[in-house]
């Protein structure tokens, strides 16, 4: 029996790898046959109608983009399709047959596989163990055959050009690498429908290229792919058709070749979005408000960094994932220890040993990972936003909740947090609105210097636009901004000045209005 299980596992993975290796020259064949059809799907959570009578059709062998703003219902839709949630009404047809998946496993057995947006790996075990979790290859005596699992995992990782081995402990990998593991894990299964929810959110350009190659290969083998991304370029690069959801409703399905970017954005947000230049004509202020001199991190993830930040300036911090940007700003904020170096505020030396010190000096950080570092999922929006500055709501030492509700609502309304009920727990909101809560919390601290680390990761065009405008408004009102983003266009669109890091060192400084992606990349790969 154990031997049988062994064979099954081998043949399954063998099959997937065989398919991947098939010649790239095969003719693309978009058949009209629908492999998956979902009709009149509705779903609500309490008072929130997440999906309202939506349709979706997926043809065999197509890459079908699903787009919409945060809270449009994309994630809920995928969760219904993959058996995580059950719809309130509506039907799912797989190859013309009505299906109702009770569990993700049931959907998986029918060939529907989903790669999660949030990482769902177990940090303490090896990559191979994660990839085969629940599907372990058994040895002769029913023991787990780790060697075989590592071998199969390595083959898959190699195909993805992942650049790491499957016997490493998962938590030692970067976020991007872990994302790669999630994808590799999904590919181990034989499937007919693959849903990728924001797969590139934390990948580097090289990794994205590899992913696209693989997605296209899968397509040529007749697999159907549902692709969710907030990066418009990606949709135009690899997708065949696109379906748009807005506010839980189905808007339209069109061929990608027949729309352009502004038209698609308009379908998503329901209106035109203005021009995408957030630069100011105002000449930069001369006053240097923050100066960092020869800062070296205690873990040497960055070394000997010096820079100045002017009043009212947006300073972009560019570089590849792992260049040490996040570590640098965390150290400036006092979240991590430094080994040596000095920080000056308005010419006066300050000592920062913990986030409180930084905040007392008017420095605030919006951290990279909102779920782990940004907010408390179980608290209400009001409590989360208020957390950074409770003193504001104290009268004689006692918290004044009506004052707190009012002042927090001012901020969340300004940021257009949806739904407009601050008594909801932040964990219940969509990703983009959670990010707005994190931003609201930072603004509540009333900082002079705001550091934003990946402020728009995984959020939609409209919310991105709102955050860009907000950043510009803050800078225009005299706040100083440090902006980190792995999306280069974002840095270029906003920054007055751009600093580029490479492997923990500062390699270049550019004027934000004149710099091109090429200029930045030159420095980002070592100059």
């Amino acid at each position, binding site marked *: 029996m154990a031997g049988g299980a062994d064979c099954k596992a081998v043949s399954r993975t063998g099959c997937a790898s065989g398919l991947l290796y098939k010649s790239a020259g095969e003719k693309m064949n978009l058949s009209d046959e629908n492999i998956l059809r979902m009709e009149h799907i509705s779903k609500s959570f*309490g008072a929130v109608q997440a999906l309202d009578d939506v349709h979706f059709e997926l043809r065999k062998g197509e890459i079908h983009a699903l787009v919409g703003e945060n809270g449009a219902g994309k994630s809920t839709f995928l969760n219904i399709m993959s058996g995580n949630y059950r719809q309130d009404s509506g039907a799912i047809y797989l190859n013309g047959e009505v299906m109702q998946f009770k569990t993700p496993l049931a959907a998986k057995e029918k060939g529907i596989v989903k790669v999660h947006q949030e990482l769902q790996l177990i940090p303490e075990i090896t990559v191979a163990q994660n990839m085969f979790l629940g599907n372990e290859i058994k040895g002769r005596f029913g023991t787990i055959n780790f060697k075989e699992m590592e071998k199969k995992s390595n083959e898959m990782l190699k195909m993805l050009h992942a650049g790491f081995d499957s016997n490493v402990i998962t938590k030692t990998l970067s976020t991007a690498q872990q994302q790669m593991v999630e994808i590799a894990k999904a590919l181990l299964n034989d499937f007919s429908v693959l849903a990728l929810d924001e797969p590139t959110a934390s990948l580097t350009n090289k990794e994205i290229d590899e992913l696209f190659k693989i997605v296209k290969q899968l397509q040529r083998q007749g697999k159907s792919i549902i692709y969710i991304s907030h990066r418009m370029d990606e949709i135009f690069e690899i997708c065949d058709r696109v379906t748009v959801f807005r506010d839980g409703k189905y808007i339209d399905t069109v061929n990608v070749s027949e729309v352009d970017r502004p038209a698609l954005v308009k379908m998503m947000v329901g209106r035109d979005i203005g021009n995408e230049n957030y630069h100011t004509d105002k000449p930069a202020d001369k006053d240097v408000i923050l100066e960092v001199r020869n800062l070296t991190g205690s873990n040497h993830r960055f070394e000997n960094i010096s820079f100045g930040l002017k009043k009212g300036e947006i300073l972009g911090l560019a570089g590849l994932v792992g260049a040490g940007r996040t570590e640098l700003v965390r150290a400036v*904020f006092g*979240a991590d220890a430094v080994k040596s170096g000095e920080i000056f505020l308005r010419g006066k030396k300050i000592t920062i040993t*913990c*986030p*409180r010190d*930084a*905040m007392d000096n008017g420095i605030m*950080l919006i*951290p990279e990972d909102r779920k*782990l*570092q*940004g*907010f*408390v*999922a*179980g*608290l*209400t929006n009001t*409590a*989360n936003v*208020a*957390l*950074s500055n*409770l*003193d504001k709501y*104290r009268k004689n*030492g*006692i*918290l004044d909740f009506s004052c707190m509700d009012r002042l927090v609502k001012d901020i969340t309304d300004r940021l257009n947090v949806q739904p407009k*009920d601050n*008594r*909801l*727990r932040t964990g219940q909101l969509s990703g983009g609105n959670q990010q707005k809560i994190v931003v609201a*919390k930072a603004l509540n*601290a009333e900082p002079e210097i705001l550091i934003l680390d990946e402020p728009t990761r995984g959020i939609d065009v409209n919310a991105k636009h709102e955050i860009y405008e907000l950043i510009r408004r803050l800078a225009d009102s005299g706040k100083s901004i440090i902006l980190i983003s792995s999306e280069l266009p974002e840095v270029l669109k906003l920054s007055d000045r751009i600093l580029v890091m490479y492997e923990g060192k500062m390699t270049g400084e550019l004027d934000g209005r004149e710099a091109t992606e090429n200029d930045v990349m030159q420095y980002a790969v070592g100059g």
Partner: protein
Amino acid sequence: MKKLNVNLSRKFGIIASLLALMLVFTLLTNKFLSVSNFLNILQQAAINLCVAVGMTFVIITGGIDLSVGSVMALSGMIMAQMMDGGMNPLASAIAGLAVGVLLGALNGVMIAKMRLQPFLVTLGTMSAYRGINLIISNGLPVRGFSSAYVNFMNSLNSFVPLPIILSLILAVAAMIVLKYFKFGQYLFALGGNEEATRLSGINTAKMKIMTYAFSGFCSALASVIFLGRLGAADPQAGDGYEMNAIAAAAIGGASLAGGKGSIVGTIIGCLILQTLNNGLTLLNVQSFYQTFAIGVIVLIATMIDRYSSK
């Protein structure tokens, strides 16, 4: 809104359970329903309530304090020895409370500064503090230290006994801190997501040390009551009290995962445990069965919690 409803319905749920329990005992024995018996229940519950209030704070942070029984016994022993040596009872009580705070803070420092796990730290100090107690007392109880003190704590001429008043003052103060003070808000945030709380500019290490120190204070206050009621300090006192305190907090809705818990819930949790104890004793049920019943109650509360939060 939704969260609020869940919380409210949960609270009504445990209040209803308490009332149902009382109804059952009222029907089964005519000795149950009387003012003096209710005061008796409250008085018996007072010690556990003190300990459980501190435990609730600790549990909200996502931690646990197994050393409460040992802290209670050690601070009680020091108080008794001081009074035995002729020291003023009030000064001795204050010194005892200070010892409790110190022992709790020591737990907190190891947990917050050295980043050790709360379960293991307090498991260690549970034994270490007990050991210190046995050493300084030679394993012998201290008796007859201050009749004035014992009389004061048992002043039955006043209508509501002092232990009830002390424990309720503590509980109400804790309730107010949890709801209306910065510290309380931070406590829930800390238990829900420590890193996000730290990055919001909150000194989470200091918070944890204060929380464990408070738990130590609560245990010492329990021992102030305990000494008065018993008139003796036993080096073996408080053994197993951590379990009653955890049970009361858990019945009251505190989640061992952190970020959840309430003092009202803990008070009702204590009352449910004590009512059960009292009622079964009145019915002459063997204490073996009482132990079993308490275990079942904790399991039922846990199940209710699991399925009501779904």
